[in-house]
């Protein structure tokens, strides 16, 4: 690709990449900033003609997620794809990939609506949120992010613009390709826009929380919450390396209805828990630095997994902060910046040695990459994933190396 706009269009010419554009230490030769989905298609088609390796960037808050790209020629900045089409009456929004998540949430809140999902990063874009695909604590009612994406427009490696799904929640026409791109780290295509299912903001919200005196207590509370009918939106464990862990239960509903549920939740947690009517500051947001992992386990084993991660870290001479949704069996493990690769590797091995448990390093620090720590562990279905990659990106130009198995 030359440093000129596509002939016959008013596309801006890509600029030269600088050190500030580096991804995993690779400085892209060029940075393109398309202003529309069609322009993105032209950028990608040109990249295909030239055989360029492409990484997409939103606000750059997750460029260090996944594996290190093996090759990078063109960085596609999605900032120009920032637009929100809120169809409030239908509880649906279609939004450009480059739209800041905070802006989207602000627009929705002003209309009394929300995307029922807690972002795990501050300052990111919608495209980045979907491409990384993970969900924060409030996922027990509306589901995780993947359950809220109802349509997607993606630009393929060859520049073809393709849409799947639509703008209605109930729709089984065609393959649900958005599922593959959600969490796909831009390795199957560049997300141009997504359609999302919304929910009304609940009239009442309560957070019931207490320090948990022991993991036996946490396990008991989890089991009893499961048997109860209080229907929490989130049951979050926050287990710092030192000091007591905390359990936080979020209840959402009507002002008249939520009181009884708070009382029952408080009884289950015991010990006179604190009740707040707002989420704590920084709710669901994970540390922006240091190696970060997602541990996935059967829900009933969540507390045990958190304890095991703590034990494995301690034994390896590291500290790990574990947070996550107990009923979803999804725990985030945050290592402090500089945590040694051996320790991270030891925790990963220890978790992966338990049948039914997995641990994915979402973001590894450079020295963890250098040490060759396996970010994914065994990924069931990997040959099928390779087949999908080969079909969508036969020359492996989209963020090559960023995904499982070197995809």
């Amino acid at each position, binding site marked *: 690709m030359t440093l000129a706009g596509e002939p016959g269009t008013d596309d801006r010419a890509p600029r030269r990449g600088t050190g500030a554009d580096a991804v995993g230490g690779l400085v892209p030769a060029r940075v393109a900033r398309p202003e529309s989905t069609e322009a993105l298609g032209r950028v990608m088609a040109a990249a295909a003609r030239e055989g360029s390796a492409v990484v997409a960037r939103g606000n750059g808050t997750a460029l260090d997620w996944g594996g290190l790209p093996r090759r990078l020629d063109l960085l596609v900045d999605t900032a120009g794809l920032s637009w929100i089409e809120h169809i409030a009456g239908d509880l649906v929004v279609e939004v450009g990939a480059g739209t800041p998540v905070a802006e989207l949430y602000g627009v929705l809140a002003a209309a009394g609506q929300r995307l029922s999902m807690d972002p795990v990063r501050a300052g990111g874009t919608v495209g980045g949120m979907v491409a990384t695909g993970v969900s924060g604590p409030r996922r027990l009612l509306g589901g995780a992010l993947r359950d809220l994406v109802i349509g997607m427009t993606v630009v393929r490696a060859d520049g073809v613009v393709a849409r799947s799904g639509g703008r209605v929640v*109930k729709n089984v026409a065609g393959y649900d390709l958005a599922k593959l791109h959600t969490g796909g780290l831009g390795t199957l295509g560049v997300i141009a826009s997504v359609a999302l299912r919304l929910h009304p903001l609940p009239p009442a919200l309560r957070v019931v929380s207490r320090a948990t005196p022991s993991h036996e207590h946490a396990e008991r509370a989890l089991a009893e919450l499961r048997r109860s009918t209080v229907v929490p939106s989130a049951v979050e464990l926050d287990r710092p390396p030192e000091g007591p862990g905390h359990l936080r239960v979020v209840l959402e509903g009507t002002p008249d209805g939520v009181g009884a549920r708070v009382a029952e939740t408080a009884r289950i947690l015991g010990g006179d828990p604190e009740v707040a009517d707002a989420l704590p500051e920084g709710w669901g947001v994970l540390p922006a630095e240091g190696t970060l992992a997602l541990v996935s386990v059967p829900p009933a084993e969540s507390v045990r997994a958190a304890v095991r991660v703590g034990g494995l870290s301690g034994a390896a001479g590291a500290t790990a902060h574990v947070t996550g949704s107990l009923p979803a069996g999804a725990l985030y493990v945050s290592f402090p910046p500089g945590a040694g690769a051996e320790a991270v590797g030891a925790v990963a091995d220890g978790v992966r040695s338990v049948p039914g448990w997995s641990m994915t390093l979402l973001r590894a620090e450079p020295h963890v990459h250098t040490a060759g720590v396996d970010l994914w562990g065994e990924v069931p279905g990997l040959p099928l994933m390779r087949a999908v990659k080969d079909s969508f990106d036969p020359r492996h130009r989209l963020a090559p190396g960023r995904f499982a198995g070197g995809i």
Partner: protein
Amino acid sequence: MSETAAPTGAQADVAALVPRLLRICGEDGVLTDTARRRTYESDGLTHHRAVPGVVVLPTTADQVAAVVRLCAENGVPFVPRGAGTGLSAGALPHTEGVLLVTSRMRRVIEVDVENECAVVEPGVANLDVTRAAAPYGYYYAPDPSSQQVCSVGGNVAENSGGAHCLKYGFTVNHVRGLDIVTPSGEQVSLGGKSPGAHGYDLIGAFVGSEGTLGVATRVTVGLTRSPERTVTLLSAFTSMNAGGQAVSSIISAGVLPSAVEMMDALAIEAAEKAVACDYPEGAAAVLVVELDGPAAEVDAQRAEVTRLCEEAGAFETRTATGADERARIWKGRKSAFAAVGRISPAYIVQDGVVPRTALPEVLRRITELSAASGIRVANVFHAGDGNLHPLVLFDDAEPGAGERAEEVSGAILDLCIEHGGSITGEHGVGVDKACKMPRMYGPDDLATFDLFRRALDPDGIANPDKLLPTPRLCGEQPGVRRGVHPLVESGRAEQF
């Protein structure tokens, strides 16, 4: 709407497989005689018929894999089938292929209460999952209307919903793990009891793939805690518009009912004749609203929904809390499809989706279509999510009536597309709507669907001629661009 016959001699390939199929599935697992094969000639959409080349009834995943491998090695197509209740001819057999029926794989392998999930074989009936979970205070949330007989494997293939998916989502929102046999005959385990599998979300993409990406042989589904309280309201209105207004008010007030169902005068009339459901007299529309959850929340919502219905013009609202009372309200709604059979010799069930805000406009246009064509249309639908199920009534003894009914039914789908909706909310594309896909998606979208399909099924043997338009099905038109498949040229009669 014609019966398709196999061209002479075209079954040679399938017939050649029979000895090996017998070794894999045993004598009782392979059906070859014409009469028995004919019993599988259609699924729930009975006007599409084709006698399968051979029927196999495997009992294990290994047998499924061996059958599919045999098909793959010989380039013979296979069609997976569960209970055969589908309404898009997604399980229409292939005359020169193997029909792979999962009805003998019906073990509930495990109910794991602690992890709130169940592990089942694909042939297990949807309702049997709930039956297995009920003693522990749980149920399986997706509830397609055929749930007594339809299979979990079929639900996975179709991403089935049901009346309560408004609140609880579809099959895809509940599947945590899948063992599949790929179109090349490999067995792959995806996910498990942990709700989050890593790597690409192949489970999410497999669910709803209509048997075109392989066969599910074991399914891990999440179970849902039975609600503390369930209340069903029946509200009667003097116009469909008023009922539609009530739906909008309820949803925009922030209430998320588990179900919001609507019936028009003709559907009510049919239901009254069939099951004497005793809905309020003079109702031009009834709304069935179900609320469930913590008792205090349900009580608060019940008051609000009642008020909103009255504001929208409801002249009567009944509330039922006991199981029997609730069942009486649901009786009319659930009997509606069959009931229509009593007031009309024949009918077509359509399945389309419109954005909820477009409901009043689309319903008005359907009334106009009906008036202009003289074809009666009964409306019974999932109003909460804009999923229409118009029943297009006609007399099949009257020459040309079927064609006119098809035209009205097709025009209703066009209305859905025109208003930014979908050509199918839960019945699937199958054969029935493959040729409608280019109305909803452009050539590049369809070609991209096909890229995915070919990634898993490069030889095109898994439920071919379903889901995506092909020249053989639809004639030459903008659609999937791919090389001519040998089967395309095999000369089966056109479906339409």
